[in-house]
């Protein structure tokens, strides 16, 4: 069975585009559809989806990249921990080039810090097991797709008695920023393409307050080109028919209730907290921190370090990018002062950032 090819069939894509055009034609005004998932941002650029859609349908990117929404003081603390003697930093690769106030992890590594890129938090636990004299700090970022995996690593470290494994947490949860953006009068979101793999964990029902309470259609969409086109078609159809419901395009993975086992693992280890989103600010209850009983694994508590005062980069407009207010081309630094080799803002660093995607694939 080869699913990926069947979800890329160009003839079906053309037929879906024809349907979308018919729907847009029968609709008064424009449809502004926002995706809030970095993998969708990438898929939309990579497959040139915007160029296929009628002018009336505008696709915009929201705060869907966990690396991009991580505030600068988190990076500053990671840098301070990297400088701490006897400390190993283990992280997903995207994080090492994100600029802090005066440094980043790549630079610290060049200066001699032990910074290692891992594929899984379990790899970080393995590093801790092998280096019992060192403190191993895993950079715990991500939405609900990733956070249960971090919870799993903490449980594993606990059950194996690995006492030198720590997590520096900056986890965020998904429907909250969508609700904030929906309420913003400057930004008229008509429909949401909801994230695929976040929804695999939290379930489709999590978006019901946005659909039913705020009257905004939500469609949980997969990442293949036909998934995205079908997701757009389903949103356009809801708008034409005047409905606002949660629908699941990506039904081969996402269920209404989500993955209950992953949710249980997550809430065993983490509890909700307020969180700062770069570009949006504080959103109450939109973060996750380790529960009190797991405080021994919390790098912020267990390994106190002095952190430099946070300085945002002047001129970077990541904040507006993350809210879908402007496109990368509207930032004066785009392509000139800010490139993937020399990123100024997080949106250019992460491969799933909107600025990086537009740099790589161009505007379509």
């Amino acid at each position, binding site marked *: *069975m080869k*699913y990926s090819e*069947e979800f890329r*069939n160009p*003839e*079906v894509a*053309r*037929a*879906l*585009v*024809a*349907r979308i055009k*018919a*729907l847009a034609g029968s609709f008064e005004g424009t449809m502004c559809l926002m995706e809030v*998932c*970095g*993998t969708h941002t990438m898929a939309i650029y990579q497959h040139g989806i915007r160029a296929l859609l009628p002018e009336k349908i505008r696709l915009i990117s929201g705060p869907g*990249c*966990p*690396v991009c929404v991580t505030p600068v003081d988190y990076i500053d603390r990671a840098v301070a921990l990297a400088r701490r003697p006897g400390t190993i930093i283990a992280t*997903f690769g*995207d994080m090492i080039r994100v600029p802090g106030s005066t440094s980043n992890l790549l630079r610290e590594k060049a200066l001699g810090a032990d910074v290692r890129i891992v*594929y*899984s*938090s*379990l*790899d970080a636990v393995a590093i801790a097991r092998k280096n019992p004299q060192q403190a191993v700090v895993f950079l715990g*970022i*991500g*939405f609900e*797709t*990733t956070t*249960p*995996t971090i919870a*799993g690593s903490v*449980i594993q470290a606990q059950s194996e008695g690995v006492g030198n494994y720590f997590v520096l947490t900056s986890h965020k949860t998904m429907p909250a920023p969508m609700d904030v953006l929906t309420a913003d009068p400057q930004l008229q979101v008509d429909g949401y393409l909801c*994230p*695929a*793999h*976040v929804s*695999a*964990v939290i379930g489709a029902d999590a978006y019901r307050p946005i659909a039913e309470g705020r009257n905004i259609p939500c469609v949980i969409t997969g*990442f293949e080109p*036909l998934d995205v086109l*079908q997701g757009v078609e389903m949103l356009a*159809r809801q708008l034409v028919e005047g409905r606002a419901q949660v629908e699941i*395009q990506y*039904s*081969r*993975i*996402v269920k209404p209730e989500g*993955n209950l*086992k*992953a949710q249980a*693992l997550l809430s065993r280890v983490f509890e909700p907290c307020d969180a700062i989103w770069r570009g949006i600010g504080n959103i109450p209850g939109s973060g996750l921190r380790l529960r009190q009983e797991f405080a021994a694994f919390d790098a912020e508590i267990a390994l106190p370090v002095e952190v430099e005062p946070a300085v945002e980069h002047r001129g970077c407009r990541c904040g507006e990018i993350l809210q879908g207010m402007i496109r990368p081309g509207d930032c004066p630094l785009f392509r000139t002062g800010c490139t993937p080799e020399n990123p100024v803002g997080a949106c250019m660093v*992460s491969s*799933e950032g909107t600025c990086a995607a537009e740099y790589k694939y161009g505007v379509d």
Partner: protein
Amino acid sequence: MCLAVPMQVRTIEGDTALCEIDGVTREASLMMVDGVEVGDYVLIHAGFAIEKLDEQDAQETLALFRQILADGGGAS
């Protein structure tokens, strides 16, 4: 960052599965999914299986695509 890859389960040992796609193999923890068997497709993210792929639902989506194609797109 939430990228996850569907892979097929080859062997299971305790809570760990060896998964394969296009000749690439990778170990994944089964801590988050119940009732996974050899031959199942699972979605792998950061070393964990986060969900099982529902073959019946996948086939239904593909059947819908065939229907859209048969309708020539315009009709709805």
